[in-house]
């Protein structure tokens, strides 16, 4: 790897020829947080995945954000490389952004507050946007959302996107804006890699990280737009702002089918996939 040139490392840029040469000389810099293009060239390609099928490969900084619009049947793998990533995720139907993640339905319909392998991410329109297909972390949270500018100012002194301690919501606003979406389009988000449990009296207990190297896989069950912010969980007890990189790989795979155990894991889920299938068939999406 070549060292990051960083701020203020100016070369000779007095003339346009010098400035262009200087710009070109920066191209081969490699840093921790960056996308890999083509995606098949990712130095961290998941083992067992045909690299020619990889459509998105990126390490999101801690903190940082990213976003993508993906085809039905895309498998998305998040990895908490160093143990302190927290992937705050919002998913939309790519064709109709008004259809989006509804966390209350995502918990209520399967009668389960805690997300894990096989859990559907449901829209408010009674369909499955994506399925949690694999999970080596088991520490997730669908109750606490993201930090806000107001909360981060109180806790860390700053929460703006440009600050060293950006709030998760500020990052999601930017991810949303890049996909043509605004503040109205941000429902409560789900958090992967940081766990919370509900005590009998309702108290929210922090169960935290499962450690470095754990992964969560999602399968896009329809064309989706996905927003991802990597920022500390609102209940993270660490005094300092603690955030490490989040690695993302996505590859062309298969949407869920009746061969998958979660397809008919409960009558509610079976009907959720049936609704999704009906919508896609009518829409002409295979």
């Amino acid at each position, binding site marked *: 790897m070549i060292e990051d040139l960083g701020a203020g490392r100016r070369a000779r840029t007095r003339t346009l020829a010098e400035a262009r040469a200087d710009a070109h000389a920066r191209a081969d810099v490699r840093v921790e947080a960056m996308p890999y293009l083509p995606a098949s060239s990712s130095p961290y390609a998941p083992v067992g995945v045909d690299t020619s099928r990889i459509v998105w490969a990126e390490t999101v900084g801690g903190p940082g954000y990213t976003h993508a619009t993906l085809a039905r049947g895309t498998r998305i793998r998040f990895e908490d490389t160093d143990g302190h990533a927290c992937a705050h995720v919002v998913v939309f139907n790519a064709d109709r*952004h*008004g259809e989006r993640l*509804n*966390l*209350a*339905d995502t*918990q*209520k*319909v399967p*009668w*389960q*507050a*805690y997300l894990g392998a096989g859990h559907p991410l*449901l829209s*408010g*329109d*009674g*369909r499955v946007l994506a399925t949690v297909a694999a999970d080596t972390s088991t520490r997730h949270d669908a*109750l*606490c*959302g*993201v*930090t*806000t*500018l*107001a*909360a981060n100012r109180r806790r860390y002194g700053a929460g703006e996107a440009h600050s060293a301690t950006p709030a998760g*919501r500020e990052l999601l606003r930017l991810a949303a804006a890049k996909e043509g979406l*605004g*503040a*109205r*389009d*941000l*429902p*409560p*988000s789900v958090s992967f890699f940081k766990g919370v*449990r*509900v005590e*009998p*009296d*309702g*108290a*929210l207990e922090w169960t935290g990280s499962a450690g470095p190297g754990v992964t969560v896989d999602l399968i896009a069950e329809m064309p989706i737009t996905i927003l991802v912010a990597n920022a500390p969980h*609102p*209940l993270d007890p660490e005094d300092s702002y603690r955030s490490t990189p989040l690695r993302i790989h996505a590859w062309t795979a298969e949407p869920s089918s009746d061969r998958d155990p979660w397809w008919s894991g409960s*009558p*509610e*889920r079976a*009907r*959720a996939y049936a*609704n999704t299938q009906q919508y896609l068939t009518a829409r002409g999406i295979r």
Partner: protein
Amino acid sequence: MTVTWATYEADYFDYSGPMVPGAVVLDHEIAPRSGWSAVVSAGTVLTLVDVGGNQSGDCLIYAAADTTERYSVPDTLVAQRNAYLVEGSVLMSNEGRPLMTIVGNEVERQDTIGGACSKESNTLRYGHHTRFHHACRENFLLEGARHGLGARDLVSNINWFMNVPVEADGTLGIVDGMSAPGKRVALRAERDVLVVISNCPQVNNPCNDFNPTPLRVIVTDPSASVSETDRR
């Protein structure tokens, strides 16, 4: 076959009254299955009465001055580090700022994780035969439209008088309510807020005792003197 969708009048109904004294600014009966909305001014108190008992009032709250700032389940839960709403709970916005505070509550706990019912989710939860049952999402969309709001503005909500326990293994769901005729909850507006309430039409689970009944909403202004009429 005649289907009874709701009970509009009954001997056991208890319309109660405001929890916090003050001049009555507004007093409205939300008919079973219908929606209601109004701007509630800072400092005034909204009392919601469960007239028939165990009737869920699905509720969304927006900052009146900028409706992109709205009630947020996660921000509310994080602020109090608890999944249930009780007296003293502050209802927070998606910007981490207080919208309303629960200043009175006559049931053990109030729900904010169960979400609103919809025709669409009813098909998942109870089968496609429920597709044409009226639902809270319909009421939210119609009431919201009166204020320029649409599907993009619907987020996770509060369910007054609904009971949604979470068990140790994460199992959650709607069970029999802990409310009764005349039980109340009172909310003080911390800013001018737009309150939207759907008197839940659900007849497929116990959130309304399988029998939608009226809700009464009363807004009082504690800073204004109580008139003779109100004191009666």
